[in-house]
């Protein structure tokens, strides 16, 4: 089959365009990673809502009043989903995709208090009776339970490990 010079150019442009789209999609993927374990992927935990995603400019719609501290730390987007443990304990998982690791570190450090307990999660993490916050690379994850039960700390830790594994 014969292909003229102009035909060849068209092919080259087409291939380049596909490559660019693919590269763009890969780049975006970093910011749209699915960090949320499916139901029962972590023992006892059910994912009870769709994942909602907020771009930085819309973050106020989710955490109005709190959004600014994330924006000033360079948040790119925030994803959130609800979970339930053994049909009872409800929790919410927020995954903030920051511009870089420094932004994640800034938020984590701002959230620390004297009663925070260090946990081995990602690059650094802390736990409280009803919540866990950790960072991994440019991701900052916050998991909060709505009840303090004897099972809460361990259940949250298991879910946090599940999220960490997907980042």
């Amino acid at each position, binding site marked *: 089959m014969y292909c003229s010079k102009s035909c060849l150019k068209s092919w080259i442009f087409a291939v380049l365009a596909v490559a660019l789209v693919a590269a763009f999609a890969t780049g975006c993927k970093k910011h749209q990673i699915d960090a949320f374990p499916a139901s029962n992927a972590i023992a006892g935990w059910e994912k009870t809502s769709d994942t909602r995603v907020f771009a930085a400019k819309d973050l*106020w719609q989710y955490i109005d*009043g*709190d*959004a*600014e501290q994330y924006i000033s730390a360079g948040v790119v987007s925030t994803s959130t989903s609800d979970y339930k443990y053994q049909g009872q304990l*409800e929790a919410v998982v927020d995954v903030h995709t920051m511009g870089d690791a420094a932004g994640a570190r800034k938020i984590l450090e701002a959230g620390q208090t004297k*009663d925070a307990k260090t946990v081995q999660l990602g690059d650094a993490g802390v736990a*409280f009776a009803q*919540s866990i916050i950790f960072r991994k690379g440019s991701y900052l994850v916050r998991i*909060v339970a709505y009840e303090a039960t004897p099972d809460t700390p361990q259940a949250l830790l298991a879910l946090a490990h599940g999220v960490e594994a997907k980042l």
Partner: protein
Amino acid sequence: MNNRRDFLKTAATGAVLLGSQSKLGIAAMLDQHDRHAAAGKSKVVIAKDAALHGPAGSPGGQLDEKRVLALLDRAIAAYTGHENPVDAWKHIVLEGGGQGKVIGLKTNGLGGRGISTHQALILAVAERLQQAGVKPGNILVWDRSARDLEACGLTINTDPSRIRCYGSDVAGYEEQPVAFGAASVKLAKILTRECAMVLNLPILKDHNMAGVTFSMKNMYGVVQRPNELHGGGCNPGVADLNCIPAVRQKVRFTIGDAMTAVYDGGPTFHPERLWQPNSIIVGEDRVALDQTAWQIIERKRAEVGMPTLEAAGRLPRYIATAADAAHNLGVNDPNRIHLMEV
């Protein structure tokens, strides 16, 4: 359905120009009833039930919802001087211009479950309003969105034969902005077109920009883009917004939820920084209410060894701004606040 309260729960979950300080006239009445009240002072009542979350001295328990109505009654009785709660509520509705009209209950579910206006308080107010003669359909519980209302434990209901409950995501916002000072906002149609009178039901929280969020700051939930009012630690945004006529004139009375509160990390839910003041705070003077709320937060922060809000870089300056001559929304001078703790 066993009783009126069950009915209310089902319904709600299935479903005048004023003076400078928005006085209902209740305060004037109080002067006659409370010999300790000094003329010219703004009244703020803090009603507390130490056993609201279980036996006193054992904090951290679940809210005993059955005690909330009694606590509300105590607060309202102390404020109005009416021992009979139905009489007190009739007076509030009458003086507030809500008789035969729609009365909005502006809640706060922004922080999500765990730090939103308690359903039990909302239902208690709705119950007393009905007993005072307000038709269920004339009670409209509202906030920004369904999500916020659901955070309070409510379910959306637009059926006008029952207590209504929906947000501005359903009713929408005005097309034309209104302005005061630096605030130029599009108001919720629920405020501008539906409600003749609004009862403000905020929840006491620390706020990482404003310092404190309680009475005046809850009005951020009546505008389309509250984030545009966050500059300068929400100062003068909060004060300016409350000067916009529809906000200033229709929001007549605050029944503040301080049963659970957050002393740091607000306005979102930070369970590690919650505590239980076990209180309901009521009043008409929104500035005096916020001044009082601020001091409660400061006392708690001092108790747990945290820096003052000023040291933390978020002094709630909007409170003084709201009291200045340009805004004249109320008083922030503690000597001009008649604080009653009952």
